[in-house]
């Protein structure tokens, strides 16, 4: 019973595909109908159209990974006025335009853990840089905030964040940005790339330039994309969460909202299939549900995961 829709940022992205798989899996478990959508290009405009189409279909809930933090607000509000439950996951929308957000991993955790990782890799001192996605990606910007906070700690006194570069999640741009980093900062010892395209591009550059062991790379990447560079040691380890579980949790949260088990208030708890009990917690203005800590991929487990996504 019930029709549940998920909208991802854009089509043709393995992460998204897996996320939607997880979503579908959950919906099947509690016996609803799953609708999977993803625009051809990652724009808010396209997602608004899709939301309207879903409203017209009278779906019960929409789970969305937003291309823009604010721009979807009117559309989603309209949906909620029509009694449709709205869940954002992976990439959030502002609290006003959602019932609850599914947080793949605590942004604070992500930010801090990545800094700690690079700190360990470069031997506790030296210059590091960040290679981010598009300059307006809300996730990345939030994580970078936390990295900077972490870096304030005294133990990082002799680690220097020299630049935040933007590869716009384009291969060619990410490559030239990385190369520019290496030339501009010959002393550079580490790169944090909290974006799947960026980290893979960086990995490629470091591999080609044979900088393994001189410049270290970590961040958030797809196992399949990064397997190569984790095994050749350019990127000793990196993090990501499991998109399947993320989608899965999203679906269950939506279901809980629809059935009225929860209404997105802090403290609400509900059963999320094999993920067990989940609780709604405060997050800034709004509320969210935490999937868990970011998952660490390294030489040991990468072969298993690269096949998955």
């Amino acid at each position, binding site marked *: 019973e019930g029709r549940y829709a998920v909208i991802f940022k*854009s089509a043709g992205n393995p992460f998204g595909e897996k996320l939607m798989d997880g979503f579908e899996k959950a919906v099947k478990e509690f016996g609803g109908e799953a609708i999977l959508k993803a625009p051809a290009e990652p724009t808010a405009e396209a997602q608004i159209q899709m939301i309207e189409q879903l409203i017209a279909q009278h779906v019960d809930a929409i789970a969305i990974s937003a291309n823009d933090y604010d721009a979807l607000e009117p559309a989603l509000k309209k949906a909620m006025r029509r009694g449709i439950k709205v869940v954002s996951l992976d990439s959030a929308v502002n609290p006003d335009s959602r019932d609850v957000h599914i947080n793949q991993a605590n942004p604070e955790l992500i930010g801090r853990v990545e800094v700690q990782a690079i700190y360990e890799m470069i031997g506790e001192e030296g210059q590091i840089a960040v290679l981010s996605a598009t300059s307006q990606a809300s996730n990345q910007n939030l994580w970078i905030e936390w990295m900077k906070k972490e870096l304030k700690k005294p133990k990082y006194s002799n680690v220097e964040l020299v630049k935040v570069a933007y590869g716009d999640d384009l*291969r060619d741009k990410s490559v030239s940005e990385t190369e*520019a980093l290496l*030339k501009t900062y010959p002393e550079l010892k580490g790169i944090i790339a909290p974006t799947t395209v960026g980290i*893979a591009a960086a990995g490629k550059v470091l591999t080609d330039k044979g900088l393994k062991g001189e410049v270290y790379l970590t961040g958030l990447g797809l196992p399949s*994309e990064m397997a190569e560079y984790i095994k050749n040691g350019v990127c000793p380890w990196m993090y990501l969460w499991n998109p399947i579980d993320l989608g899965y949790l999203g679906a269950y949260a939506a279901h809980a909202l629809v059935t009225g088990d929860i209404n997105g208030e802090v403290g609400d708890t509900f059963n999320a299939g094999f993920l067990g009990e989940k609780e709604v917690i405060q997050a800034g203005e709004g509320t969210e549900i935490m999937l868990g800590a970011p998952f660490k991929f390294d030489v040991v487990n990468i072969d298993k995961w690269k096949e998955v996504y």
Partner: protein
Amino acid sequence: MLEGKSKGLFNSENIQKIRELGLITFIIIIGFFVQLRNPSFLSLENINDLIKNTAILSILAAGMMLVIITRGIDLSIGATLALSGMLTAMTVKIYPGLHPILAIFLGMLIGLICGVIIGFFVARTSILPIIATLGMMNVFRGITFLVSGGSWVSAYQMSDGFKNIATGSVFGINNLIFVAIIIYILFYYFVNYTRTGRQVYAVGSNPNSARISGINVSKILCLVYMIMGALAGLSGVLWVSKFASAQSNTAMGYEMTVIASCVVGGVSIAGGRGKVSGLLSGVLLMGLLDNALPLINVSPFWQDAIQGAIILLAVVVSALVKRSVDRKNLMRRVI
């Protein structure tokens, strides 16, 4: 021949030369400032990177120049590139043993087919290039999504041989650069030393006379789009090999960069004009901007505006140069 010299000042080569000189000086000036800001700019490594990253652009630009010379335009190359890249990568994934050379030919073949389709529309059904390529852009892109089923082909799924296409090198020259050089030698020979090459210019310069002097116009048009397609296909393989990853949204909107570098290189949208040397300087400028702006810490938010402004500047200047030359030609007519 003496007068010949005296009038030489106004012959076609020189008009071009004036433009290119302007462009080159422009490039040098930019380079100079970049060097001041960041000494590593003129390092051998960076030069190498610059050329390597511009190689693919330059290959595409060569094809686009032919298209534009025939008064056409091709918006579909980005999609063609993605399609051939994806299909080739998937093939490599299934048959890791596939010889790189074969992979390249496969990519070119796929591109060629795309080109043939467009060539057919433009030459035979007299659909305007901009429409035909606009439509096929959507189609090719869509097909890429479908065949890939939304998943990417990642580094670990590609044979080393395939990845080496982009990273390997011949007598110390990176393969990408090497391929580009080969292409340009052939290209230069084609446009300047073969009949067909010149006929491309003739068709663009004056289609009606072309018919009267018995040139098979629609054949030439077809050919031009086939070449463009094949080069886009080749670029697809190089691209995928370079970044060791095939995505369905590869090179979205890249066609604009290519067209821009042609226009800046003095290839006239009105058809009939365009020289390899000019094209190269145009491509160089584009590549330089991509390479230099990050180097001198230009805020990423300024890069578009700077590019746009420079393109506009370049075309306006070239227009003014052309005017002054025409004016001189008139003055020569003592009335």
